[in-house]
């Protein structure tokens, strides 16, 4: 238990990363088939659309040209590791304490002061060695695990005509099939936004990415004797002024 990231977390992280890249890029190809979004149960007339979506260019889609059949093949296939993965990581997080330790928030985590302190701490040197999540991380990761990933999964299930017979209540809950489709689209972009922030922050320190493979080291307790030395700070006192004390 001295690893920073549990093996289950690391396994899920990379399988999920591959799955959501395929799902997102095939999803953009599928979006090109009918570039209008509606609220409610039905919707086919672009005049009724709440949003007319751009045509996503080939470089952003899988495959790189418009092919609804192939895009759906990949989408339907990648939905399996994604959906089972969400279930898997929730079970793992509840079992190993990751959820309770890192994702549950208290009211004080939601205050502006806590947010500012988090942002300051995150940009401070040596921030990656700090144990646990700060309030902003708790809120963001909690939102991803608690809201975005399950919403993506359930809206996807709800728009499948074969699944609706199993859970007609799901469509009612989401406000109808076209609402579920709109929410599927919105949530995909919310996950994309998280993905971009996540990637930029991870790329700021390559060790963070490496740790998601190796597991890294959980920072030891302050009283433990093996505390690593603090990152070298610029010496505030010029060496020559220190010399007499030593002499």
């Amino acid at each position, binding site marked *: 238990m001295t690893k920073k990231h549990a093996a289950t977390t690391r396994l899920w992280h990379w399988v999920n990363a591959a799955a959501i890249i395929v799902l997102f890029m095939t999803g953009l190809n*599928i*979006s090109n*088939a*009918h570039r*209008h979004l*509606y609220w409610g*149960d*039905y*919707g*086919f*007339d672009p005049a009724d659309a709440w949003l007319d979506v751009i045509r996503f260019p080939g470089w952003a889609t899988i*495959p*790189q040209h418009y092919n*609804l*059949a*192939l895009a*759906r*093949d*990949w989408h*339907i*296939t990648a*939905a*399996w590791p994604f959906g089972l993965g969400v279930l898997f990581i929730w079970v793992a997080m509840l079992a190993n304490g990751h959820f309770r330790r890192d994702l549950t928030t208290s009211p004080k985590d939601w205050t502006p002061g806590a947010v500012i302190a988090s942002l300051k701490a995150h940009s401070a040197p040596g921030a990656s060695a700090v144990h646990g999540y700060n309030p902003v991380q708790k809120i963001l990761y909690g939102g991803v695990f608690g809201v975005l990933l399950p919403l993506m999964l359930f809206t996807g299930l709800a*728009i*499948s*005509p*074969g*699944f*609706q*017979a*199993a*859970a*007609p209540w799901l*469509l009612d809950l989401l406000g109808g*099939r*076209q609402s579920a*489709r709109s929410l599927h689209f919105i949530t995909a972009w919310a996950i994309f936004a998280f993905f971009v922030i996540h990637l930029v922050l991870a790329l700021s320190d390559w060790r963070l990415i490496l740790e998601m493979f190796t597991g890294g080291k959980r920072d030891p307790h302050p009283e433990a004797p093996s505390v690593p030395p603090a990152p070298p700070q610029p010496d505030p006192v010029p060496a020559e002024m220190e010399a007499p004390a030593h002499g």
Partner: protein
Amino acid sequence: MVDLPRRSLLAGIAALGATACSKINDSEAARGLFEAAEDGHRAVHRALAGKQGLAPEYTRAERSPTFRGNGSVTVADPFYKQQLAGGFPDWKLEVRGLVEKPLALTLADVRALPQRTQITRHDCVEGWSAIGEWQGPQLAHLLDVAKVKPEARFIVFRCADTLYGRDYYESIDMVDAYHPQTIIAHSLNGEPLPEKNGAPLRMRIERQLGYKQAKYVKSIEAVTSFDSIGQGGGGFWEDVAGYQWYAGV
């Protein structure tokens, strides 16, 4: 001039990428994976909903104001055109193949069978939906009257329309064939089917996407396999574009 090699290199890399992708997509491993994923979705849907689990039905107030026609919206066949003009007096719906008692029903015969009326949602593979009220006999009833042989595994629908020079057809398995909401509709929103929506008869298979809902149906055929029909994909769009045979996702 200086640009040329670099450009051709880039083009070469792009072509290599495209080839690699199409190789992955066409490879037997990828095909097998896609089919396994599709079969998995079908198995889960059937396990959770049950073989007879119903698609949601709506009230009249929840219908869409119109019902979009898509794919074939008109039929070129001269016999069809003449029948359409006269209200389909000589149209015959055949039930054939692996049945003990082949049938040939007029539109009046179809209307005289026990009817089911259902207000259901039609989901196109492209993403849009429309809601309409359909009426017609259950396919299960017709199959019982024709006495389907036990070796039949699929029901094939053959249609009067052609697209890209090919006859439209579709197929479903016996679970969907005997599903209570699988009907041969002759009316939409209380009126005889308009041409764009499949006059005089179209299928409603409510737990699958729009391309399974064969229009302008001429015959219903019980078979053990659809390998020798069309290109063997089990339907027009399956053959032409590689759409999934199970259109429940």
